[in-house]
C-alpha cells in the first residue's frame, strides 16, 4: 500500500516492543460483537494510481465544464480567470499540508499571509478589521446576524429581499432553533432595490438589517440611508457581498456606513468547484472586534523584539470559552484565503479596478445585446457584472434545454425561488472576463431561437 511505510517486519518488532502478541490485542476495548472479522464487505479493495485515475476521470467526464462552452452563471459563485501562479502557491506543501498555526514560531508563513489577507479584506470592504476566514458567505452571514444580536441584545433581524435565497434559507434554519426573529420576503421584479421598504421595517427591536450589495438580481443600491436609519435605532447595518470583484468598481459598504461586512471570497483565487470549498469573508468596525467569530491573526514581537504574527483574542473562541464562545467554528478556509490573497496581490488596486471595469463593461454590452431580443427585457437600471432578464416565457425549461445544447445560459429564478410563480420568467446572467464575444452571440442566438 503506497501510503503506508510500515513493513510486516516493522509491525512484528513494534508489537514486541509494545508487549502485544497481535494487532487485535490493541483493540481489546472494542466490545467483541462490534469487532469486524475482515475488511468491510461491499467495498472495493485497494487500487493503484492508474486505476483510480481512470475511475475519477470517468466521473469527471460526465459533467459539462464551464470552460468548454458559453457560460453565464453567477448567483453567488463566479467564474473568473485564476492566474497559474496562484495554484502553484497553494500547492506548496508548506502551505497545503500545514494546519491552524498553533505554534507561531514555525508557522509565520501561514500567519503573515493571514495578516495580509485580513488587511486586504478590510480595505476592500472599507472596514477597520477582518478575520482569518469563515466557511463561506452563507455561514458568515448567519454569524454576522448572531454577532449583531450579541451586540444589540435584540433578536429581530430584517433581511433584504435581495439577499441570496440560500443565505436566507441558512438564516431561517438557524433562527428556528435559536428563536431569532427574521423579517424576510422574496424579491419582486423591479428595477429598484428594496432599500425604501427596508427603511420602514427598522425599529427599536431591530438588531440588524442585512443587505446584499450588489443584490441577488444584480441591482446596486446606496445603503447610506439604511445605515443612518439603523444607527438612529441603535441597530446595525450588515452588508453582504457575494462578488468581491465588484468592490473594484463600486463604493465599499464601509464607506456607506455598514457596521459588519461579510461576503463570499470565491471569486478571487478559488474557482467554481461545484460550490465548495469557498471562503467566507468577515469584517467589521474596530469597536466590535471582541464580538467577532473565527480566528484572528495579530501582530506582535518575539523575545528578540522581531516582528511576528500570532493567533490572538482567542478568549472569544470555542477551545477557550467552550459553550460561551462567539461561534463554534474551528477549521476554517485557510487555503482558500491564501488563494484569495495571492490572487489579490497579483491584481493590486490597479489590476482590481481594471478587472472590475472589464467585467462591468462586458456585462453592459451583453445586457444590451440580449435585451434587443424580442421577448427579453432587462430589469436593471444599474448593475455590476450580473443582471436579471425578464423573458416572456418560463425560464427554467429554457435553461435546461440550452444546457443540453452546451450553452450554460444563467441561473433561472425558478430554480432559486420555486415557490414564487411571479419570478418564473426571471433569468440571472453573469458576465466576467472569461466570457467572449462569441459566447455572448451564441447565447443571444440560442435565446432568439427559444423565444421565436
Amino acid at each position: 500500500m503506497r501510503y503506508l511505510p510500515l513493513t510486516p517486519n516493522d509491525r512484528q518488532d513494534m508489537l514486541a516492543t509494545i508487549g502485544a502478541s497481535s494487532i487485535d490485542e490493541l483493540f481489546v476495548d472494542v466490545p467483541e460483537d462490534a469487532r469486524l472479522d475482515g475488511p468491510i464487505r461491499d467495498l472495493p479493495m485497494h487500487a493503484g494510481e492508474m486505476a483510480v485515475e481512470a475511475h475519477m476521470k470517468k466521473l469527471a467526464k460526465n459533467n459539462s465544464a464551464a470552460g468548454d462552452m458559453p457560460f453565464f452563471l453567477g448567483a453567488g459563485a463566479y467564474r473568473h480567470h485564476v492566474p497559474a501562479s496562484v495554484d502553484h502557491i497553494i500547492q506548496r506543501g508548506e502551505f497545503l499540508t500545514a494546519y491552524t498555526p498553533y505554534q507561531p514560531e514555525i508557522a509565520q508563513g501561514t500567519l503573515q499571509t493571514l495578516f495580509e489577507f485580513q488587511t486586504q479584506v478590510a480595505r476592500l470592504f472599507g472596514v477597520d478589521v477582518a478575520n482569518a476566514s469563515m466557511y463561506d458567505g452563507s455561514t458568515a452571514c448567519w454569524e454576522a446576524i448572531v454577532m449583531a444580536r450579541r451586540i444589540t441584545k435584540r433578536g429581530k433581524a430584517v433581511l433584504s429581499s435581495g439577499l441570496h435565497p440560500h443565505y436566507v434559507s441558512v438564516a431561517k434554519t438557524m433562527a428556528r432553533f435559536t428563536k431569532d426573529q427574521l423579517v424576510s420576503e422574496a424579491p419582486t421584479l423591479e428595477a429598484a432595490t428594496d432599500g425604501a421598504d427596508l427603511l420602514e421595517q427598522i425599529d427599536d427591536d431591530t438588531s440588524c438589517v442585512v443587505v446584499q450589495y450588489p443584490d441577488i438580481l444584480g441591482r446596486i443600491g446606496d445603503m447610506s440611508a439604511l445605515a443612518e436609519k439603523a444607527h438612529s435605532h441603535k441597530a446595525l447595518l450588515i452588508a453582504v457581498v457575494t462578488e468581491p470583484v465588484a468592490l473594484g468598481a463600486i463604493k465599499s459598504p464601509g464607506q456607506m456606513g455598514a457596521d459588519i461586512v461579510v461576503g463570499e471570497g470565491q471569486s478571487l483565487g478559488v474557482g467554481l468547484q461545484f460550490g465548495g470549498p469557498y471562503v467566507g469573508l468577515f469584517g467589521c468596525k474596530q469597536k466590535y472586534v471582541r464580538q467577532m467569530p473565527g480566528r484572528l491573526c495579530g501582530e506582535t514581537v518575539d523575545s528578540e523584539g522581531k516582528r511576528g504574527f500570532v493567533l490572538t483574542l482567542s478568549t472569544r473562541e470555542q477551545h477557550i470559552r467552550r459553550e460561551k464562545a462567539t461561534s463554534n467554528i474551528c477549521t476554517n478556509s485557510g487555503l482558500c484565503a491564501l488563494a484569495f490573497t495571492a490572487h489579490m496581490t497579483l491584481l493590486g488596486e490597479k489590476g482590481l479596478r481594471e478587472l472590475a471595469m472589464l467585467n462591468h463593461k462586458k456585462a453592459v454590452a451583453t445586457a444590451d445585446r440580449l435585451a434587443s431580443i424580442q421577448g427579453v427585457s432587462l430589469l436593471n437600471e444599474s448593475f455590476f457584472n450580473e443582471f436579471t432578464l425578464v423573458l416572456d416565457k418560463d425560464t427554467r425549461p429554457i435553461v435546461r434545454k440550452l444546457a443540453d445544447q452546451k450553452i450554460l445560459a444563467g441561473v433561472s429564478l425558478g430554480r432559486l425561488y420555486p415557490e414564487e410563480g411571479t419570478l418564473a420568467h426571471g433569468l440571472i446572467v453573469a458576465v466576467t472576463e472569461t466570457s467572449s464575444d462569441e459566447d455572448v452571440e451564441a447565447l443571444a442566438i440560442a435565446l432568439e431561437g427559444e423565444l421565436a
Partner: protein
Amino acid sequence: MNMLTEGRPTKQDENLAVPDQGALKTHTGNRALMVDEPLIFETGSPDRSGVDLPEAPSVESRLGGLDRDEPISIPGLSEAEMVRHYTRLSRQNYAIDVGLFPLGSCTMKHNPRLNEKMARLKGFSDIHPLQPVDSVQGALGLIDELATWLKTLTGMPAVAMSPKAGAHGELCGILAIRSALEARGDAREVILVPESAHGTNPATAAFAGYKVEDIPANTDGRVDLDALKARLGPDVAGVMITNPNTCGLFEPDMKAISDAVHEAGGLVYCDGANFNAIVGRVRPGDLGIDAMHINLHKTFSTPHGGGGPGSGPVVFSQALAPFAPLPFVEKTADGHFHLVEEETAEDHHESSFGRMVAFHGQMGMFTRALTYMLSHGADGLKQVAEDAVLNANYVLRSLEDVLEAPFAKSGPCMHEALFSDNGFTNGLTTLDLAKGLIDEGYHPMTMYFPLVVHGAMLVEPTETESRAAIDQFIGALRSVAERAKAGDEMLKSAPHFAPRRRLDETQAARKPILVWQEPEEYAEAAE
C-alpha cells in the same frame, strides 16, 4: 589548501578559527536560507500589477452613480515578486511534507498528490453549483459514491454531505436531534458533554440553542457510565460522546451509553473526529449512535491547508435520517442522479430541518476523499487504522518511563498517546517542552488538550510515518522530556533555532493589531 584548476579554493583552511555563530551578525539580519520577508504593504504598490487584462469594451458604465471614488490601497506585485514573496513565506512553515506532525486529534497524515490532481480535473473544478442537474451527473454521482462509502464504513443508513467542517457537522447532528425531538413534541433543553470533549462540542450545542452540562469522567479517562445514567432524565435531549475519545481511548461502554440515553428518551451524538483509529475495523453504527460527523480532512487525507478547508459529512441512524438537511442527492431507478433542493422538499422530505449552507458542500474535498478511499480500498483502510493504532502504542510504550502517561495502565491506546507534565521541575511546562521540540525539528503535539489532564500532551503519529521516522521522533521527545524533568533552564527560552523566538501573545491580545497600518512617518509625509 586545495585549489581547482582555475584557482578556486575547495576546502577551508584547517587552522581557521571558527567564531561562535551566535555572535555573528549579518548585514541583512538574515541567515542564509532563513530569510525574513516584509509584508506586501511594504514592498508592493497599488499601481503595480501581475496580471494583463484585455481592453474593456467602450460602453458607458451603469453603476448607478456609486463608483468607488476613494483609494482601495491594496498593493500589487508582479508575478515574479508574488511567487517569491509567498515562496519565502512558505519556508517559514512547518508542514507534513516537511516532517512528522504529531498534532493529536488532528490526524496529520500524508496528503496524497493524486488527490490534488483529481480535484483539478476540469469536470470537477470548473462546474457551477447551479448548473442544470443533467449537466453535472458525474459530480452528483461522485457525491453519491462517497456517501455510499461513508455509510458502509460506519454502518449507518443515511448521510448528510453538506457540512463544511467538523464543527459544522456537529451542528448538523445537533439540529437533527433537536428536530426529531420537536417532531414528537418533546422540548428537551440540555445536552450533556464530557469535560474532555473538544471545545467545538459545547460551543455547537450552545450555538443550536441548548444548555450544556458536563458529564464526569472516571479515573481511567472514560465516561463515567453511572454518573451519566444518574443525570439522564426528561430534560436531556442527548449526549455528545467522542469515540475514540480525546484521551486517545476507546469508550468500551459506548453501546451501554447509547442504550441508556435512548431509554431516557434522548439521542446520541458521536464526535467522529478520531475515526482514523477504527476505520475499517469497527462500524460506529454497531454501537447504537444516532449521528456522527466524519472529518474528511483527518481520516480521509484531504489537506489541512494551514487551517482549512475541511469537510464534515454526518452519518445518521434511521431515527434521524428523515431530518437530514437539504440539499441531498438521490439516485433514481434508471440510474439518474437527482438533487433534492428547496423545490421538492415539500413533496418528499417535509421533515428535513432545512438548508445549513449555500450550495452542496465541499466538492473539492469530496473528490480528494473518494480518490483516497479508492486508493486504499476496504483492505487498505483497515490497515490504516491498525498502523495508526500500532504507531501510537509504540510511542506510548517507548516513552512512558520518561513521561507520565496518566491512562497507560488502563490498557492500549487508540491512535494517539496522552502524556502529562507531571515530574517537570524548575517551573518548566508543557509549553516549554513543546518549544524545545521545535528546536529538534518537530512540530509539537497538541498541548493542554484534553483539559482533564494537567499540561496535556496528545501525540498522534498517524499511519504514514515509517518506523525510522518514529524512532527518531521518540528519541527527540525523550531527550526534551528528560531536560524538562531535569529543569533545564534553556527550555524556557526555546525555540532558539526557529524563524522566530518565542512570540509575545499577551502583547498581541492587549493591543490587537489585526491589519497593517501605514507607519507614522508615511502618514505625516502624506499630510
